[in-house]
């Protein structure tokens, strides 16, 4: 309800007696008549023009901000999609390369075996084996069993070194 349409007497009657309520309502009416009889100055036209201009600028900036924010959001979403696409492509490439690697892996293993160090080791083992064979053939000699044991130890050691790489 607007203040102008308000029934002041009825309002005051909720708190004070009938006659008092009427008097209070009358006091308010007369007081407000004084205010009406002494109007406050009005704002200058220049001030109103300035306020309108300020508001127009503020609205323009607000719109620009909204547009900029929307653009940033869209760019962020686009960047997200691009990132997702790049990750998907990478994952797809990885999946397609994996079987190829599996095919290639025996070759890689053979590359390990084709090492020149292995050749040396093989030659050494062969040498020890021939020594052992020679020792076993001259079993009747006095220190023959000791030499055999020594050779066997050497073989075990070489064997261990081989597996350690």
């Amino acid at each position, binding site marked *: 309800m*607007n*203040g102008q349409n308000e029934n002041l007497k009825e309002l005051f009657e909720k708190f004070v007696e009938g006659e008092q309520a009427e008097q209070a309502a009358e006091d308010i009416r*007369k007081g407000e008549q004084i205010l009406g009889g002494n109007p406050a100055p009005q*704002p200058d036209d220049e001030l109103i023009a300035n306020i309108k201009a300020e508001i*127009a600028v503020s609205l323009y900036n607000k719109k620009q901000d909204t547009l900029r924010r929307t653009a940033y959001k869209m760019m962020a979403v686009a960047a997200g999609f691009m990132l997702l696409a790049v990750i998907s492509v990478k994952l797809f490439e990885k999946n397609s390369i994996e079987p190829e690697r599996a095919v290639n892996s025996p070759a890689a293993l053979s590359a390990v075996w084709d090492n020149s160090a292995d050749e040396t080791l093989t030659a050494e083992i062969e040498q020890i084996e021939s020594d052992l064979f020679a020792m076993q053939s001259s079993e009747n000699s006095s220190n023959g069993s000791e030499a055999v044991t020594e050779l066997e130890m050497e073989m075990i050691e070489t064997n261990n070194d081989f597996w350690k790489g």
Partner: protein
Amino acid sequence: MAKSEDLARIIKGCKSGDAKSLSELIDIYSGRLYGYFYRLTGNRETSNDLLSELFVKLVEKIGSFKDGSFEGWLFKIASNLFYDYLRSRQRQEKSFEVLKSEFESETTETKQSSDERIDKLQVQLGRLDRDTRELIMLRYYSQASFKEIAAMRAEPIGTTLSKLHRGLKKLRELIEH
């Protein structure tokens, strides 16, 4: 005063950021709001600043206005702005308390030489306490109902009625004598 349908249309336009609607709203309410600020501050320059600030705030906050009395909502912002201004002035006064006494004579001279013709009502309003003065102006310029004013001030309607009655009665006595 704008019809309620017109006002609803204007408010809708303001919410969507239409400059023309805001211009219309300024034309409708600037006089009343300026009167409210002027009667409370007694100073045209301060009233100019407060009115400008109010409309800037209105643009920021118009989206939060739902249903109900637009005048009530608008004058609540005006009232908050006035109290903010008072608080900042009090802070300034405290800071310059020492300096103030030194320049006291100069200030009085400035007041007297001002081209503002302070009317009788303004003088008598100055004799009322700040809260009563604000209540009288809020009621007169917002044209809101007592129920709305009581809600704005977060006090029982009986308190609002009694304060306004006492205030206006006193103002009348001061003016008539």
